[in-house]
């Protein structure tokens, strides 16, 4: 699981990221770095603020405090500029362009890496055809890489669940990122599909793309990640190699509740419930929300 990259550089450097929604602090002073060639895991119970942290990294939310650097430059809090800079992501609740074909979805992912504007399209200037063909070729390569090439002309909405997740990854890769953020990529997958997803993520890493992945499946994390950070109630409580983190009692307490005080697990259950209720409410009131 060790990286093969000769020199490691810092790809992502988030320092002191805090996100408050009114009175609720969803993310509290989180520092996290991801180095080139690394696969880093981000785990934590439901409502811990993992997705919110992703949204802060990708510019969907403007963090209340803190800053996010990508390869040494501070990222502007605009999603399209973040993608342009080289961070691509997938969503916890799949957000494909449902009524576009699989190929078109990936082509949209190429948007920042292509230039052809409206005039070029209207007048079919010389470069237009070439650029379209190059885009198409690149997109097909990615579909082959993720094993979706045979379904290039299907509508995204008609794909089975597991393939929709793969397509989201292919679409994100189309923007030629240096860092890929995956939000629960195996949610809802069966064990075989999960295994395949692992292989896919390794293959992505081998292409030289650093990966930061949110996941619940602890085996998946153990197999995959060089380093794991644990988020509980918005705070990063531990960070380290996967096996160390798994044995840490604070992590066990966070996931299973503290066995010594009160009814075991019940606080935690109530907390999660409250957080989810909050999330549902937040969903209906915040437009930029991605939950």
């Amino acid at each position, binding site marked *: 699981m060790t990286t093969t990259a000769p020199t490691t550089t810092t790809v992502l450097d988030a320092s002191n990221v805090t996100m408050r929604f009114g009175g609720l602090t969803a993310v509290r002073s989180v520092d996290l770095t991801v180095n080139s060639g690394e696969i880093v895991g981000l785990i934590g119970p439901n409502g811990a603020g993992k997705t919110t942290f992703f949204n802060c990294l990708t510019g969907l939310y403007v963090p209340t405090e803190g800053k996010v650097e990508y390869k040494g430059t501070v990222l502007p809090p605009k999603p399209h500029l973040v993608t342009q800079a080289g961070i691509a992501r997938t969503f916890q609740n799949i957000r494909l362009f449902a009524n576009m074909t699989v190929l078109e979805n990936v082509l949209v992912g190429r948007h920042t890496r292509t230039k052809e504007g409206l005039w070029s399209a209207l007048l079919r200037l010389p470069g237009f055809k070439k650029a379209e063909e190059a885009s198409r070729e690149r997109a097909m390569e990615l579909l082959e*890489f993720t094993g979706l090439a045979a379904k290039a002309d299907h509508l995204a909405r008609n794909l089975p669940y597991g393939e929709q997740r793969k397509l989201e990854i292919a679409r994100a890769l189309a923007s030629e990122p240096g860092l890929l953020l995956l939000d629960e990529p195996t949610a809802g997958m069966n064990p075989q599909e999960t295994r395949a997803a692992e292989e896919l993520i390794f293959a992505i890493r081998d292409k030289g793309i650093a990966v930061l992945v949110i996941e619940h499946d602890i085996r998946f994390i153990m197999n995959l990640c060089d380093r794991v950070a644990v988020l509980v109630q918005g705070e990063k409580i531990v960070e380290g190699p996967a096996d160390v983190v798994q044995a840490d009692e604070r992590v066990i307490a966070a996931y299973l509740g503290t066995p010594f005080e009160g009814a075991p697990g019940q606080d935690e259950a109530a907390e999660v419930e409250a957080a989810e209720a909050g999330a549902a409410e937040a969903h209906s009131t915040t437009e930029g929300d991605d939950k």
Partner: protein
Amino acid sequence: MTTKTPTDKTTDTTEATATTTPVVPLPPAVARATTVAGSAVALIGTFLAWTWTDEFPGNLTVTGYPGGLQVLTLVGAAVTLLFALSGYGIKGLRWLTPGGTNSPVLLSALGVLGTTGYTLGAISQELGGLVNLEPGAWVSGIGALVAVLGALGLPADQPYGADEPTPGLWGRIRHSLTAPEPGRARELPSWAEILIIAAGFGVGLYVFAYGIGTEYSELFIGFLVTAAFGFTAVTRAGLLKRLSALTAKHRNVTLTAAFVAAICFPFTQSNDQFALIGANILIFATVALGLNVVVGLAGLLDLGYVAFLGVGAYAAALVSGSPQSSIGVHFPFWAAVLTGAVASLVFGVVIGAPTLRLRGDYLAIVTLGFGEIFRITMNNLNGNSGPDVTNGSNGIPNIPDLEVFGFNLGVPHDVLGHELTRSGNYYLLMLLFTAIVVLVFRRSAESRIGRAWVAIREDETAATAMGINGFRLKLLAFALGACLAGLAGTVQAHVSYSVTPEQYQFAGSVPPNSAFLLAAVILGGMGTISGPLIGAALLYLIPAKLQFMAEYQLLLFGAALMLLMRFRPEGLVADRRKQLEFHETGQLDVPDDKPLPDGATGVAKAGA
């Protein structure tokens, strides 16, 4: 069912016979013979007199020469006859029914009955009683009735659906109107395919020109009934699917054929009034297509779109050299067009920049407001409540006719032995603009920009996360849409001689208004090219032809929209996406999986 080829049709039909009960219990052979006989009788009846006086429009008193509404019955009966004979498997007619065999017969027979029945009713109502009917009318009427009864006895084209294995009477009637999709067509040489496309457009042009040229509303209603049933029958027979497969294959040929057919239209009309309807339809349709960029591609609900047409028209009117124009300059046509388009573009950007930060319903309401603000401002710039620019509610009249390359569009010209009237001239000029807008729509839709628009429409958050600058692209769509409407506005100002604020309302009884534009896009089919064109033609033609019901127009319009949304939410012309979106056809419409050779995947392990 969908992979059915013409060769296994017979087995299919017998299978259907075994599992379905016809609405009228008749042996299939008897039913078919009855239908053939009935439609033949109806056809013969059109050669006899239907009434004794020529007070009823169209003169139905002549024996041996069908006229007016009789022609519609004649055509309908002939189509029924052809479909019915095709069901016998007669060689040379089989191609007529690659999809359903019996449902087209029933539908066209219903069309004949509808038209004939309507005619008989209209004669007795207008002339006062059934006594005014001559025997010919009864012959056709009874023939049509017999044909429908016979057609109801024909076996259904497909077995009952699994959800309703033994439907009741109403279910059986509805089911007998459905048909399976046609299978894959045999490959023809391309010249033959192109000929078929040309013939298709020829028929389309003829039907359209006939509809515009109907002289009285009875004939137009009869035309609508015949055309609606005929269209559905042709669809059920699978012919439309076949034709659209061909047009998808030869897209440039299709586009050319469509424009040639459109160019031919003014040469089929000798009456200036009908050519004017054609020109107005084109203006309406072109603006609707421009709106389709905004609504259909980028998904921005713009309820004030007609204002951009108004900006273009006012700009062109101000520089037209009209004596009432407050500027008093006279630009050549190309400069006026440029002025109108640029003015609209600027107006689009000015309105778009603040409003496009809003999403969904908010945007709709704000654009609705801006549309009205435009109209009211034009009203107020009258020298009383504001500076005198637009003459207020009097508008700018006396806009002179255009001169293009020394060719005065205001006077008739002789072209190829046919006199092209003023409206015919403007029709052809407008057609050029329509062509430009079609080209712009198609090229922008099939590009990186167009894909970004659709992505924004589908999911704006995901689109921005893919690197799309949502605001900028939405503004681009908005501005492009505005510019296209402005182009059309420059011609509209000249066609209608004058511009007034009241032409640019949100909703009104004369078509190019925001509500009708949006309706044309939705009715026709969002995101398609032909959809808004067809939708606009229908929405213009129906009120223009049926002026006696002007008071109920908006009511009928609302009812029609509701019915449409209930039964065909994707619009008349569906793009493939919409069809899949609204009708859960599963994977039927998606292409077959291409099996990949083993090891073709870059990372085979990832493909598991």
